[in-house]
């Protein structure tokens, strides 16, 4: 699988059709892979693709990063199904044009929840929870796919994959507030959850703006509540569920529980699944005159 991708990537870099191929290479220790930007054809020999490739590379395609501004005409990118979903969403949000990227896809067997759980293979005990409910193991939109791409039915609803969500929604408000208060007490605002997200598109995040200061910058619980509510609100209807925010959090806060909950709400209210169409507008930038308004007096 990866051999075919390597070969194709080398060929396209040699012919000059692609300026760069973003993929994964062996990392600093055997449990990790690291993102690699292949600029020369021989770099493609370093490419790997297996259960350790957790990073969501399309984050690099977001305009907030330097890379889209480097003047590269066409960027190749290797994606798992969920990454390609993120690319689709980026295109729907005008962060990217379809002809600016060349997508290498492959069938995905799942990835590990966190590199530290990698023990040489992928199994139930260490597989990321998002993979259990995945309907894009065969990726949606690819330019290069090794072999024949089978048709898959993806019409089903969005599936919540985090087990913690079910227990949380059953709690009453006070317990839920206490749960978040205890969890958020650990957050020290490193903003890793923002940096890894392919859909946090702002050049200057609202939490970094101090005039006026909408989100309290201090990492005390009040500021952290403000931060997480803000972040979750900004990603409503846009998060494609890669789970990177939770994986990147150094203090194990399940940041994406908010996002998963909102995905469910958006699916129920507006019948929208982010990352499945380049044309359909994300739900909060459009409206229907007969939208639900049961909560309004």
């Amino acid at each position, binding site marked *: 699988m990866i051999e075919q991708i390597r070969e194709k990537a080398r060929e396209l870099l040699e012919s000059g059709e692609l300026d760069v191929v973003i993929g994964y290479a062996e990392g600093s220790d055997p449990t990790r892979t690291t993102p690699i930007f292949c600029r020369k054809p021989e770099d493609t020999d370093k490419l790997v693709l297996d259960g350790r490739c957790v990073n969501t590379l399309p984050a690099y395609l977001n305009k907030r990063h330097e890379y889209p501004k480097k003047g590269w005409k066409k960027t190749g990118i290797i994606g798992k199904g969920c990454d390609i979903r993120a690319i689709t969403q980026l295109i729907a949000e005008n962060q990217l044009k379809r002809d600016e990227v060349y997508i290498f896809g492959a069938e995905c067997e799942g990835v590990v929840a966190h590199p530290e759980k990698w023990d040489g293979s992928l199994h139930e005990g260490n597989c990321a929870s998002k993979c259990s409910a995945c309907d894009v193991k065969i990726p949606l939109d690819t330019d290069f796919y090794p072999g024949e791409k089978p048709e898959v039915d993806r019409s089903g609803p969005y599936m919540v994959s985090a087990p913690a969500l079910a227990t*949380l*929604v059953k709690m009453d*408000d*006070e*317990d*839920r*507030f*206490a*749960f*978040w*208060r205890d969890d958020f007490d650990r957050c020290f605002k490193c903003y890793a959850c923002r940096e890894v997200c392919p859909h946090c598109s702002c050049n200057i995040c*609202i939490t970094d703006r101090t005039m006026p200061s*909408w989100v*309290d910058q*201090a990492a*005390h*619980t*009040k*500021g952290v*509540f*403000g931060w*997480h*509510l*803000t972040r*979750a*609100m900004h990603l*409503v*209807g846009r998060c494609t569920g890669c789970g990177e925010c939770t994986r990147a959090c150094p203090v194990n806060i399940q940041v994406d*529980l*908010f996002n998963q*909950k*909102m995905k469910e*709400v*958006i699916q129920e*209210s*507006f019948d929208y699944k982010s990352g499945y169409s380049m044309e359909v507008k994300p*739900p*909060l*930038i459009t*409206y*229907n*005159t007969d*939208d*639900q*308004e049961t*909560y*309004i*007096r």
Partner: protein
Amino acid sequence: MSKGIVRHDFEPKIMGFVCKWCTYSGADLAGTSRMDYSPHVRMVRLPCSGRIDPQFVIKAFEQGADGVIISGCHPGDCHYNEGNYYARRRNLAFRNLMEFNGIDIKRLEFSWISAAEAIKFTQIIDKFTNQVRDLGPNEGYRALLDPYASRLVKSSEESAA
């Protein structure tokens, strides 16, 4: 037509974010018609309900509000044609988010009040004030207000006591 004075143990602080074309004018009408309504709402006038960023609500709760009311023109009546349609979607999502965060959603009110609906305005304000008063102070957020209080070194008198 005085309602008489009733004293309560707890008087809630309520923030109102309202559209200037409808609700604010409705409130104006209530005022010029000398209607009685609860004085707990501090109103902020904005050009449109579509301008009401959920960030305002988060900030209001952070600053010690016990309840927040958002109000704008009825669907189809928006001065800018479509602002309230966006507001409707956004607030649906936001309410779910607040609820998931553990905020009692009864503290957050959304209503359509037109410039002519002074009576509806007073009714909604009264009803919401009572509702929030029954809920009591927003303890969860109030406990966050002074995050370092619990970590302060106690004064000698306090620790002796």
